[in-house]
């Protein structure tokens, strides 16, 4: 015996006049949609082609599309409640594709999902479940936007969002209501028309609002650059980065129009969180406004009216924005692109920046110290010179070779090497990898440094590099690819985690909070290796912002060299968070983070926690001198 269930009411027998009116309205709605959407599409397609874009690997794209778009994983993961509400709306839209098609077909008398057929009845109930979820979801999002009002959505209330929410609610409500009326009832016809009108009003509004992301963002996620924070190579003799509209590529334009203005990027941005001008969301919207007003053929500079140069140079390139973006916007290449435009053409004037560039045009390291100091350090520590016979080339980097604290980290790592009898050597001469100039947009100096270093490594027949600096690791492995084939490289956390079982255990109760460096975590996806090292020497404590949500120390993107910040210092913000965990030790895995926290902790009045790199933690349990073999002997 079948239970009585209400069925979806579908009015029959529309008059010819109604059919013509409906068809006319559909045409008007579709035309209004296209009038705006066509313009947007035209601006995207008329932008410059992305010369370095490669479609492969397709598998990765398909997976990201499935995971981030279809499963809404990123949307939910970062903000579970609103994320789930959004997912409900999104999934309902997918389920409603067939319903809407049928709804329109009914208006022309050619409906195909008959409530009388089993399939039709099943699908209408199936969609009803989503409609219910969507109704709850959209109400929740409405309450959030208009009553809770999180600051990330912007100070100004978006009435268009309210209207869109109202339309979505109307669509769902009319769909659900039609289960409770009869086909023949005149109210069925009213519901059908209200549903239709909501739909036909919704469509042309989309391309005028941030709801354009409905149409664009699936494509944006699918057509990403391929890897995180990837800086594209310049193409040809007239490409200096993002200088004017003519430099905007299709990917940049597509991303600018895809922004849904959710503010996740801003919520995680170290600059935006410490009172600086930079707001990554506004940067993307600035590019969009430029495209709207001037278009991709304009020679007007991108920096000026639409985006402030000062803001662009406050970015630490920590990548938190790009990592969080649910619609596939790649903020780092855009920000670095704008910097390239300013630096490669000489329009950026900054005393500290010029000093850094001049130091690296002539000298070998970003600190501007004589290389003789590095030689002295090598002699004092009796570091073997790499001659092609050793397994590892230990890359010192500017911090490891010249900074006192960085040298301590190198010395500890060397202690571990000696204990493990690892064969290693350091290069007689090393130049800065070019990380700070790369991120600041100086392609000339970066190329000189990358080429000189690649040549030195090839001459010395280096096969494997290990480095204490995640910035060196990233730059050597990824950024140098533009100029040659860099040797294999790993960060010392990876090396240490692999050899942990061979090191003496020194378990104790010491609470150690680990700070994820941006260039190790988000850039390299290495989160657990340094934690294993920490766990082997104490009790691991997590800061509120950890793993991929880690908060920058403020040094990245060349900012370590740019002098005083405006607003609160990023390093002080993060250091306070680490201190508040109550840990007695702060564990770091990057000499730049270490340097920033060293200064930040020095300003706190009471006894701050001690600050140690994971190499120093690992070396603590080792005997003072000699190798394992010596001990055995």
């Amino acid at each position, binding site marked *: 015996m079948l239970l009585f269930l209400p069925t979806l009411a579908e009015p029959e027998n529309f008059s010819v006049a109604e059919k013509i009116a409906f068809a006319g309205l559909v045409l008007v709605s579709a035309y209004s949609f296209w009038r705006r959407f066509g313009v947007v599409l035209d601006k995207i397609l008329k932008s410059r082609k992305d010369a370095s874009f490669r479609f492969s690997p397709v598998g990765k794209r398909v997976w990201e599309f499935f995971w981030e778009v279809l499963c809404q994983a990123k949307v939910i993961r970062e903000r579970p409640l609103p994320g789930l509400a959004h997912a409900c709306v999104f999934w309902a839209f997918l389920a409603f594709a067939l319903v809407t098609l049928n709804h329109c077909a009914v208006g022309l008398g050619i409906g195909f999902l008959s409530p009388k057929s089993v399939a039709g009845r099943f699908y209408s109930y199936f969609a009803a479940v989503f409609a219910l979820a969507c109704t709850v979801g959209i109400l929740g999002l409405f309450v959030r936007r208009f009553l809770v009002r999180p600051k990330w959505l912007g100070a100004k209330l978006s009435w268009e969002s309210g209207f869109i929410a109202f339309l979505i609610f109307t669509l769902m409500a009319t769909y659900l209501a039609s289960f409770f009326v009869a086909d023949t009832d005149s109210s069925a016809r009213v519901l059908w028309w209200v549903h239709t009108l909501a739909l036909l009003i919704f469509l042309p509004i989309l391309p005028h609002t941030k709801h354009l992301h409905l149409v664009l963002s699936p494509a944006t996620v699918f057509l990403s650059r391929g890897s995180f924070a990837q800086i594209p190579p310049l193409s040809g*003799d007239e490409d*200096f980065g993002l200088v004017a509209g003519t430099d905007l590529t299709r990917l940049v334009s597509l991303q600018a129009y895809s922004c849904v203005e959710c503010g996740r990027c801003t919520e995680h941005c170290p600059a935006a969180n410490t009172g600086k001008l930079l707001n990554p969301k506004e940067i993307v919207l600035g590019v969009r406004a430029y495209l709207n007003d001037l278009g991709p053929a304009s020679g007007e500079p991108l920096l000026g009216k639409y985006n402030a140069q000062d803001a662009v140079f406050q970015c630490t390139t920590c990548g938190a924005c790009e990592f969080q973006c649910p619609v596939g916007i790649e903020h780092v290449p855009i920000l670095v692109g704008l910097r390239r435009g300013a630096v490669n*053409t*000489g329009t950026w004037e900054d*005393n500290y920046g010029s000093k850094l560039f*001049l130091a690296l045009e002539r*000298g070998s390291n970003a600190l501007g110290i004589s290389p003789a100091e590095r030689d002295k350090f090598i002699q004092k520590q009796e570091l073997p010179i790499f001659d092609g016979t050793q397994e590892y080339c230990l890359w010192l980097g500017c911090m490891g070779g010249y900074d006192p604290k960085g040298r301590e980290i190198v010395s500890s790592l060397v202690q571990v090497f000696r204990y493990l009898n690892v064969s290693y050597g350091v290069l007689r001469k090393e130049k800065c990898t070019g990380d700070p100039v790369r991120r600041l947009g*100086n*392609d*000339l100096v970066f190329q000189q440094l990358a080429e000189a270093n690649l040549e030195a490594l090839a001459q010395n027949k280096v096969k494997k590099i290990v480095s204490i600096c995640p910035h060196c690791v990233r730059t050597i492995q990824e950024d140098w690819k533009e100029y040659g084939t860099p040797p294999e490289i790993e960060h010392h956390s990876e090396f240490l985690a692999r050899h942990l079982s061979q090191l003496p255990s020194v378990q104790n109760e010491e609470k150690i909070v680990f700070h994820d460096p941006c260039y190790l975590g988000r850039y390299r996806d290495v989160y657990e290796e340094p934690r294993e090292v920490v766990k082997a020497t104490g009790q691991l404590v997590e800061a509120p912002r950890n793993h991929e949500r880690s908060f920058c120390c403020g040094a990245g993107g060349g900012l370590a060299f740019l002098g005083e910040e405006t607003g609160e210092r990023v390093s002080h913000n993060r250091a306070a968070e680490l201190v508040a965990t109550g840990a007695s030790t702060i564990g770091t895995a990057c000499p730049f983070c270490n340097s920033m926290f060293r200064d930040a902790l020095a300003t706190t009045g009471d006894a701050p926690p001690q600050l140690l790199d994971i190499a120093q933690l690992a070396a603590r349990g080792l005997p003072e001198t000699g190798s394992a073999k010596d001990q055995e002997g």
Partner: protein
Amino acid sequence: MKIIVAIKQVPDRDAQVRIDAAAKWIEESDIQFALNESDAYALEEALQLKEKHGGEVIVVSAGPERVGQTIREALAKGADRAIHVACDDLGTRDALGVARLLAAAVKPENPDLVLTGLQSEDLGLGQTGVILAELLGLPHATLILHIDVEGDAGSSAHIKVKRELEEGWFQEIEMPTPAVLTIQSGGNKLRYATLMGIKRAKLKEVRTLAASELGTDAAPVVILERLALPQKQKSTQILPGNAKEAAAALVEKLKFEVRVL
């Protein structure tokens, strides 16, 4: 305003300098070269004058082929064209010999201003600019930090220059043009080289003049006898005893051995 900047390529500050077998010059094979520091400031001053008053900046440099690299850098920073005086014997020429080469290259250009660095980082003679002025028959001033063009920037412009004296004193001089000025480091902030500059530099004119064609006398008046690296010796002494004894011993030494007290 037509400004010529004489620049010199010198061993990089970070280079490990070795003396060659004849002890007359350094081993050039294994070291990097760069633009002489005060010449970089001379170039910067010229570029700023051009930006303010219009005109042309021409760099001139004497030396072997490797000098081309430094010339391109100067063009990349904004110089309009360059003259390369090709000669392989820069090390054995004295300041007069080099100035004669430069004068022969500069004279046909009839510049309004000739700027040189105060002195070179390698030989540090500090004379080339002054001798150049003499050879060109032009007035000169040295140790210049800043140049102001008074009134019209045409061919008969007057300039006001700021000289650096000892102990924080400065001197301002008004002088006519054309003139030769040697520029002190630190008067301006140097600009960095840009990718666009380097690409544009490829299109700029570099005229090469062979030293032999300039008809100048290469025979040096001042002959370099021998080149040697400074002797390093460690003469650190640890004074024993407690603070009082050590202090007494220190005073003793400062008085009678070092004789500074």
